[in-house]
């Protein structure tokens, strides 16, 4: 079934969106017209309303605008991979591991490259956890090692080997000039070069990440903003159990 959707302003399908942007020209009637033409003629919008025009520097003008986009989308055709594991909760995860895997799950986590943001990975791993949800360190059936930030790829992988990890958790926060992508691809490449890619479950997370990107970059999963430790624990429990079963067969 086709279900085309459009932005909703205050009427179904009115297509209204709000925009703000800067043009490298001085403020004036011509700048206003340029802003209008940009949206209407060049970007195909209708009912363009320039709400505000303000000169914000010599030769730069800032606009706020509302307009109606003509674009629409078949929502039912939007297909996006999602992490399918339900959230079993702290107790559920532990029970599952205890009854189905019967051994601890071991993970290492950290942030490679020059990225020194640790709060995200701390939220997942450290006792305290995130917004009331305990971190992996608190799970009796997990053994988690938080390696911190600014890790060299080899250091990271060495530790994973050393503790015989099931999974490698990577946090990427700084995204300028796609440095997070570069760092992420670099780590996976290094793991491949060392023949370690298939030994570990590779999980990536961060505020600008999606599961889809994680998969595209060669990880097994990706977690975005607002992730709870129990989301990750549930996923890891399922995945480690699945792989263990695979091996048994």
């Amino acid at each position: 079934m086709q279900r085309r959707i459009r932005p909703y302003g205050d009427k179904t399908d009115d297509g209204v969106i709000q925009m703000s942007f800067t043009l490298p020209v001085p403020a004036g009637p011509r700048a206003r017209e340029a802003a209008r033409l940009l949206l209407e003629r060049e970007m195909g919008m209708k009912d363009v309303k320039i709400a505000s025009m303000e000169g914000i520097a010599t030769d730069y003008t800032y606009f706020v605008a509302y307009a109606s986009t003509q674009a629409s989308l078949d929502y039912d055709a939007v297909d996006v991979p999602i992490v399918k594991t339900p959230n079993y909760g702290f107790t559920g995860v532990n029970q599952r591991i205890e009854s189905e895997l019967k051994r601890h799950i071991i993970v290492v986590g950290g942030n490679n490259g020059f990225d020194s943001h640790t709060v995200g990975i701390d939220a997942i791993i450290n006792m305290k956890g995130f917004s009331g949800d305990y971190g992996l360190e608190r799970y009796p059936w997990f053994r988690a090692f938080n390696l911190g930030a600014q890790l060299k790829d080899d250091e990271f992988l060495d530790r994973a080997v050393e503790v015989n990890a099931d999974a490698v958790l990577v946090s990427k926060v700084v995204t300028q000039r796609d440095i997070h992508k570069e760092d992420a691809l670099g780590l996976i490449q290094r793991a491949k070069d060392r023949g370690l890619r298939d030994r570990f479950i590779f999980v990536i997370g961060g505020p600008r990440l999606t599961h889809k990107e994680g998969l595209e970059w060669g990880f097994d999963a990706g977690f975005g903003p607002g992730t709870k430790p129990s989301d990750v624990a549930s996923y890891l429990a399922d995945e480690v159990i699945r792989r263990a079963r695979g091996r048994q067969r």
Partner: protein
Amino acid sequence: MATLPLDHDKVADCRHLARGIAANVQQYIDGHTTVAVERTVLRLLGVDGTGEHGAPLANLLVETLHKAGVLGKGAAWWMGRCFRLGMDSPTTMALELPRLLAAGDRGVPPLSAEDEQALQDDVAALARDAVEELGRRREHRKALRRSLGIGPDPQKYIIVATGNIHEDAVQARAAAQAGAQIIAVIRSTAQSLLDYVPQGATTEGFGGTYATQENFRIMREALDDESRKLGRYIQLTNYSSGLCMPEIAYMAAHERLDMLLNDSMYGILFRDINMRRTFIDQYFSRRIVAHAGIIINTGEDNYLTTADAVDKGHTVLTSQFINEALAHLAGMKDSQLGLGHAHEIDPWLEDSWLLELAMAQLVRQVFPAHPIKFMPPTKHMTGDIFWSHVYDAMFNLATVATRQSIQLAGVMTEAMHTPLMMDRYAAIKSVNYIFNAARHLGEEIEFKRGGIIDQRARLVLDRAHAELQHVSRAGLMDAIGEGVFADTRRKLDGGKGHDGVVQRDAGYFNPFLSLLTPAAEPY
């Protein structure tokens, strides 16, 4: 606790002066009626539906009486007279009356004293039923409201205005989910000048949705449902304003609205409606509202859109005293008087926010028992929605710091359009954040004696006092003629709707004037 030292004697004198001013106007009111009042009487008596060309029957009947020059006896009397003449349906009356009236005494023969009494008794009985029904509906509201609770002050009041009542209902539910406590359905731009109330559910309007009885019902139903879901009673408000002020008050009472925008002068000043017409209409609308336990919101905030908020801040206070006095004369309780004021000082003035605090705090203290309504900045809002959103944030903080009762949430797109769904959400989110993050600010701070805030509050009170002395000398109607309020002048016999004003005959009959007693416990 943030309080200002208040000159209580001066406040008392202001009230005294306002009572005198109101009494004067009331004298005029008591000798007159209007087409709108009489239509309301008919509606209360059960006249509903439309006649020829879709015009409401109430309008057709009153128009007929007015054209014939006999409206001074009161529509209620004529209704009774029609009963005696054997007509029992309003439709018949609308069809027959013109002919009978044209025929004079032959069409409508004089009555014996006995018949006259019987006529009045019949109608009074009907009227009693009507008033009791309103009472029942008030009690129904009260029960719902008490069982679910309405949440803490400042009450979050937010507007919806799509033009389509069904779309409005969707947006009202969304607003309630986001935290709104009161939903106002903004009325289509041109409606206040219509001398009739449209009929039925409506789906088209200009930047607002027509106020119709059916629309009221639809929205209240949606909110009753949402209230139950949220476990929080969501209030509903609309406009009892314009040329149909009392009729809408009746419909609102009937459909269990909780509040109404209702002002003794707004229509005069901002819609150029005749002042006599407005004064008479506001009185009867308030009689209904007093009985129905509805809270009114007055419109003093609007003054600061045409007059400067620094120079003319005191006219807001002046007008609030007058609105209060007039409302008291209609039997309203202080707890029903959501006197309006606004945050409209030029934001780029140094210490402008301190001046806003002064005014908000003053109004709060002068009217301590009143559900004061604080209106957001509008005039100085701009298309730069980011800045405008910050300006509203400062308003939000002023609201909670001075413990206002009701706050209309300012929306960042004020200078552009009536709110989109996302604009409204952003507005409520900002209010939620600030009311919570500064919840007890008002209890934590004191204002410096003799400081900017204190001095400003004194000045405003002094000026309001002087202005009331002036109005009391000039009389309210002449003062309006001079442009005392909103920098706007209006003539005694100018403006729309003047021809709908009618002098009451000696035998004027309106049973509701005695029946509509104030609700002892409005909520």
